[in-house]
């Protein structure tokens, strides 16, 4: 796409923290929707010159919603740089915190955004307040999980956003049995409430046939590469091999050495976005094409893994696959169900860790190791693969940093997915002068399904916040800049 003109502007994307917008771009033969990310904070630059053992705390500031994901993955990278294998106890602590992070983020999205969005399909306003009117008990349960999660997090990690506890080779504090006993109680309450949300979802969205109906819409379809961590083929959120499958489900690559991620992922810079567009390197960069797009996140994880651990999670996983008719699932609306599977998985995995005696015994930090120049950390943040790649000098001062966040990777996916709608959008505007309610709803639902953490959307650039009920202010602007219609 070497020459194109700005044809329409959807500006801004509201109810998203920060500012993003959707722009439609046309050339003579094609129409594209473009998701623009618009803030600029420069974490890769500010990391230069910093002491590398301090990077986990510094880089956690990339995101105030999934700050622990950044803190943990930064810790993994500095473990490598300092040449230290983290102690078994500290690894369990970190894994536990990772599960809490994913659980928190997923529950937030599922309860406050995903559920309302899908169950209220057909209505203009699809958010928690609307759902409150119709199903107050459900909303109460959802909000109660929020406060319980905060209590749990405060108890175990103290400062909820940007707390520091990761050091090279370990963590600064561990848990004792009393704390964990209390945490288990709270987790039990969260689990019970989650069952309510689970049942509501299955009833209203799955058994009612709504999901199948929506899943038939081509607009939500994305036949792209899927990338996720696996451990022995199992869905894995902390330590695993990078598995890439193609749109037909064939394993294209499986890389145990995470530091070789750049064999799979390349980044493209475009002038209309402060975020890069990552793509599948072997395919070569093809803007807005499924052929070089990589999807990450809950749906991708469901697709790439062969199994999900945890008894209940495994059952749910099986049911999801049966309903969808097998893998890989290409319809993004299934991401909501995938999130539910992971919620159940996280709760079961947390209980497993809390039962291990190794969580309470042993060293918290390993201070022995021979430093090396480069270190890469990879883990699964709630929204997908997160990568921190650091290089340092002989005194362990950072000389460069590279951060690829899941929403950056999905930036390309969102953009590619949006093109499936822009055709009808242009048609409607040309013929009726305004997009239909339905088209707007489709675009909203599509973006919500990705759960973009616009906070992280780029290491270079920050958009704030995480997925919120997304609705758009649509504005149609002619090439001369004249506003033709505003919605």
């Amino acid at each position, binding site marked *: 796409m*070497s020459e*194109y003109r700005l044809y329409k502007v959807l500006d*801004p994307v*509201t*109810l*998203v*923290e*920060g*500012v993003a917008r959707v722009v439609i771009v046309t050339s003579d033969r094609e129409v594209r929707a*473009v998701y*623009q990310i618009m*803030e*600029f*904070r*420069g*974490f*890769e*630059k*500010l990391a230069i*010159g910093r*002491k590398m*053992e*301090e990077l986990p*705390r*510094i880089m956690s*500031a990339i995101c105030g*919603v999934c*700050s622990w994901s950044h803190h943990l993955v930064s810790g993994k990278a500095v473990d490598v740089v300092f040449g230290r294998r983290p102690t078994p106890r500290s690894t369990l602590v970190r894994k536990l915190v990772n599960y809490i992070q994913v659980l928190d983020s997923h529950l937030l999205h599922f309860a406050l955004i995903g559920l309302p969005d899908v169950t209220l399909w057909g209505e203009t306003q699809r958010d928690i307040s609307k759902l409150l009117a119709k199903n107050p008990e459900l909303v109460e349960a959802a909000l109660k999980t929020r*406060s319980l999660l905060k209590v749990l997090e*405060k108890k175990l*990690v*103290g*400062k909820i*956003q*940007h*707390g*520091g*506890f990761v*050091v*090279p080779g370990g963590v*600064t*504090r561990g848990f004792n049995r009393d704390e964990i006993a209390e945490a288990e109680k709270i987790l039990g309450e969260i689990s019970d409430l989650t069952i309510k949300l689970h049942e509501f979802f299955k009833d209203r969205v799955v058994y009612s046939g709504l999901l199948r109906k929506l899943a038939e819409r081509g607009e939500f379809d994305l036949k792209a590469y899927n990338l996720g961590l696996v451990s022995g083929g199992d869905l894995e959120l902390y330590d695993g091999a990078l598995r890439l499958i193609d749109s037909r489900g064939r394993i294209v690559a499986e890389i145990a050495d995470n530091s070789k991620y750049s064999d799979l992922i390349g980044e*493209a*810079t*475009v002038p*209309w*976005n*402060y975020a890069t567009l990552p793509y599948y390197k072997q395919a070569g960069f093809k803007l807005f094409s499924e052929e070089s797009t990589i999807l990450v996140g809950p749906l991708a994880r469901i697709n790439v893994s062969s199994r999900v651990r945890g008894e209940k999670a495994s059952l749910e996983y099986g049911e999801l696959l049966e309903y969808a008719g097998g893998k890989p699932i290409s319809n993004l609306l299934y991401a909501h169900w995938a999130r539910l599977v992971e919620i159940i998985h996280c709760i079961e995995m947390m209980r497993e860790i809390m039962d291990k005696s190794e969580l309470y015994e042993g060293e*918290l930090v390993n*201070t022995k190791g021979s430093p090396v120049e480069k270190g890469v950390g990879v883990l699964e943040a709630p929204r997908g693969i997160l990568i921190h790649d650091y290089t340092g000098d002989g005194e*362990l*001062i950072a000389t*460069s940093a590279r951060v690829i966040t899941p929403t950056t990777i999905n930036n390309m996916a969102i953009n590619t997915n949006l093109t499936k709608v822009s055709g009808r959008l242009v048609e409607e505007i040309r013929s009726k002068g305004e997009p239909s309610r339905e088209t707007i709803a489709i675009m909203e639902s599509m973006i919500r399904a990705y759960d973009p*953490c616009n*906070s992280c959307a780029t290491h*270079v650039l*920050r958009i*704030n*916040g*995480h997925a919120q009920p997304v609705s758009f202010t649509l504005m149609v602007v002619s090439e001369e800049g004249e506003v033709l219609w505003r919605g």
Partner: protein
Amino acid sequence: MLKLAVIPGAICGGCDVALASVGEKLLDVLKYYEIVYWPIAIDRKLSDLEAVEEIDALIYMGGVSTREEYELARKLSSKSRVKVALGTCSVYGGIPGLNSLSSPLEVYKVNMGRSDHWIQGDSLGLPQLVPYMAYTDVVEPDILAPGCPPSGKVLDQLLEQLIEYAAKGKIDHKPILLGDPESLCNKCPRNPKTTKIKMPGIKRLHEVELDDKKCFLEQGILCMGPATRNICDHSCIKTNYPCTGCGGPLDWGGDSGVSMISSIGSVLLVDSEKSLLEPGLTREIDKLRDYIGTFYRYTLRKSMLYKLRELKKGGLK
């Protein structure tokens, strides 16, 4: 009903989530204020906000990184009666302020420089970058609520101030800097004997196994407590992680870096000055690396050091 607007600038989302998590106190505020804009919670567009003639209280989160953000911050602030800078980025620039010494293009090049693929062309109206600044560089705010993110304590104080404003109609002695007017050490849960601290040397965070009861300085670890305003309940210290100074300096207009090196001068190797002499002392001080990232991690943009650098470049009047 008074009008309250919450505006995100260049944020990470932490302050938004923190504010949204205050719980029932928010309901007290909602007795007096109607929230006319708050993207994380309320479905109102910027165009709606543009139609509002006067905003009673504006809460701004995050820094300012683009021309659009700058114009918006200025425009909305000029029609707001009470302006609140929420969060350390808004008050002091925060961690992104570490890029203050570079131009936006230099920062952008770091990302562009290692891409595998470049496309030229139209920027499609992408907003222009401006040298990064804090909200307090755009306007003079009435209430400053520091913290990364602000603690429950500071948020409670903020909401109390807003309720007071609703009742009294004015803010006493601006700007109000929330938190306690003393350093963290005074209230530190490790109860240090602040007049008898002896720092045995300079150690980096990875060089020691951290003791969870002793003052960090007494372990040779740099804790920004002495130079940081007491704005929190010390969650970091309780998690056995040293304070990194996210509350900013003790007072508005203060500087965390010069304060901290003064403190270090007071406590470093105080028992062995006369045996180590200058060569021994310099040997130890030479272990200190990255003064900016250590002492100005959150406050560089508003620091005296930044002003000094601007003066050197010929920028200050």
